[in-house]
């Protein structure tokens, strides 16, 4: 077993303990401390991976699947107050599930490979993280939307407004970073392939995600239900862009 796998298993154990403490104890403090410890080990695993692969963990599905839960963890630890207390445990659970799914991927997909020439570019270090920052925000917005949909009748109007404001904020962050990802991707494609836009399925779906989120800002008489539906559709679309496009559609991004 590789050092990276051992570190990821250790990180997962700390995350599981953190989730257990979250429900077991009255305060979130201890759970958070254990989670931070897991996050540090997780970060060490990413460093080990980067050293072995000789590039940051951005280049294939496995690498992004161990990167994404780390970014979710970062959001949970450093911007805790932006996330409703009742759904924070979901972030911890998601971190565990994603690491578990990454662990279940076939060995071939986990193999650390050096970068192919087209990926060997400075733009990868902007394009990929931009998307993943965006994805984390959209994911948090999905949690808000589900929480609001479930509790909208029980919540006080002021609390509801406060949560909708936070959901709006996440969507704005997500929308901004998806745009950064799309534009830096276009610049990279132009430098690499000579064409900034080729209607490749991944490109097209990246645009579709932005078009769906554009709805959010143009809803007439926006209410919680309308907003939540748009966010959930956008999230499904993003999931398809991330996983579905790579396996179901053929294009220039087949390696992602």
């Amino acid at each position, binding site marked *: 077993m590789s050092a990276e796998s051992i570190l990821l298993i250790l990180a997962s154990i700390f995350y599981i303990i953190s989730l257990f403490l979250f429900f077991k104890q009255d305060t979130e403090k201890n759970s958070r401390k254990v989670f931070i410890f897991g996050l540090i080990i997780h970060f060490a695993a990413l460093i080990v991976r980067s050293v072995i692969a*000789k590039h940051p963990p951005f280049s294939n599905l496995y690498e992004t699947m161990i990167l994404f839960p780390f970014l979710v963890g970062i959001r949970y630890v450093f911007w805790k107050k932006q996330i409703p207390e009742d759904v924070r445990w979901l972030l911890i659970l998601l971190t565990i599930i994603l690491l578990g799914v990454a662990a279940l991927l076939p060995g071939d997909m986990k193999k650390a*490979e*050096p*970068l*192919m*020439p*087209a990926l*060997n*570019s400075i733009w990868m270090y902007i394009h990929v993280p931009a998307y993943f920052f965006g994805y984390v925000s959209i994911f948090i917005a999905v949690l808000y939307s589900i929480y609001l949909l479930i509790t909208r009748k029980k919540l006080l109007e002021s609390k509801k407004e406060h949560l909708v404001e936070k959901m709006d*904020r996440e969507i*704005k*962050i997500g*929308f*901004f970073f998806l*745009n*950064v990802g799309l*534009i830096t991707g*276009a*610049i990279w494609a*132009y*430098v*690499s*392939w*000579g*064409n*900034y*836009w080729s*209607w490749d*399925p991944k490109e*097209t*779906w990246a*645009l*579709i995600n932005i*078009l*769906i989120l*554009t*709805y959010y800002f*143009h809803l*007439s008489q926006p209410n919680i239900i309308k907003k939540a539906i748009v966010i959930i559709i956008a999230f499904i679309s993003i999931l398809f862009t991330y996983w579905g*496009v790579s396996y179901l*559609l*053929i294009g220039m991004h087949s390696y992602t």
Partner: protein
Amino acid sequence: MKNILSKIFLIVLTVLTVLLILSTFFPGAATMPGSVEEGSPLVKFFHLDNFYNSYINIGLWGIITVLLLVSVFTGAVKTTSQKIIHIVLALIFIVIVYEKTVNNRFYLKLTEGETIQFAKYTPGQSPQDSLAINLKKFEIIRHPGSRMPQAFISHLVMNESDTVQLAVNDPLSFRHYRFYQNAYDRKFTFNVQVNNREFTASLPDTISVDNRSLILNNFDHQTRKFVLFLNNTKHQITPGKTVNIDGNQITINPKGAKFISIIEVAEVKGVGILLILSLFYLLFLYIAFRKEDRK
């Protein structure tokens, strides 16, 4: 007015989004004979097999561009940063149409040692921007200790004087053109002996033998034999073995391999403006969101 514009915009956006989603599942259906999608009236009607180049796609983006501008000039959009975002987006779409219409893009397939000459031809005018490109050498640099390529480099000689290097992610500007290292291929060459006469050929190739055409068609990897045609009759030859075909002694031996560099050549009018507009868009998107958050 704002509500009407908003409703039209959402309808157009819905149609465009749905068609874009569907189009990703119909890549070039019409060009694949016998495919299920061929002849489907819905696919044909919405041009889903070639949606991106269709008038529907261009038309929908055109309507969105008009709506973006109308929303600014009718006061439907209130804040300055939002107005700028709408105008910049409209300009981006206009520049994209201009850039895609005006600029030429084409691929060059250059074999090692080969020279290709090209120029811009306009009806009624003499050729302009003539350029001769020679591929001196094609190089694949691999990651240390791995078979994975690290870089593809074309060593080019432009107009028999300037030696330049072209690599992936490192485009080259020369005169009015911009060159991109797109891909590569390999061309295998063969020594063909026909009645003691020697020819160098590649696949596919045609050799003239006593006013008859000997067509080297392909190499069958299953039978490991060359497939060739003489007088429209198909023959198969094992490499290195001499075979008598219609009284001709024919031998084919592998000679070597040459790289073919696939280079994209593009004109870049308007691309710089597009980049500036895109950065403006991001900047004002950030400003607009920040302002809304502060409120």
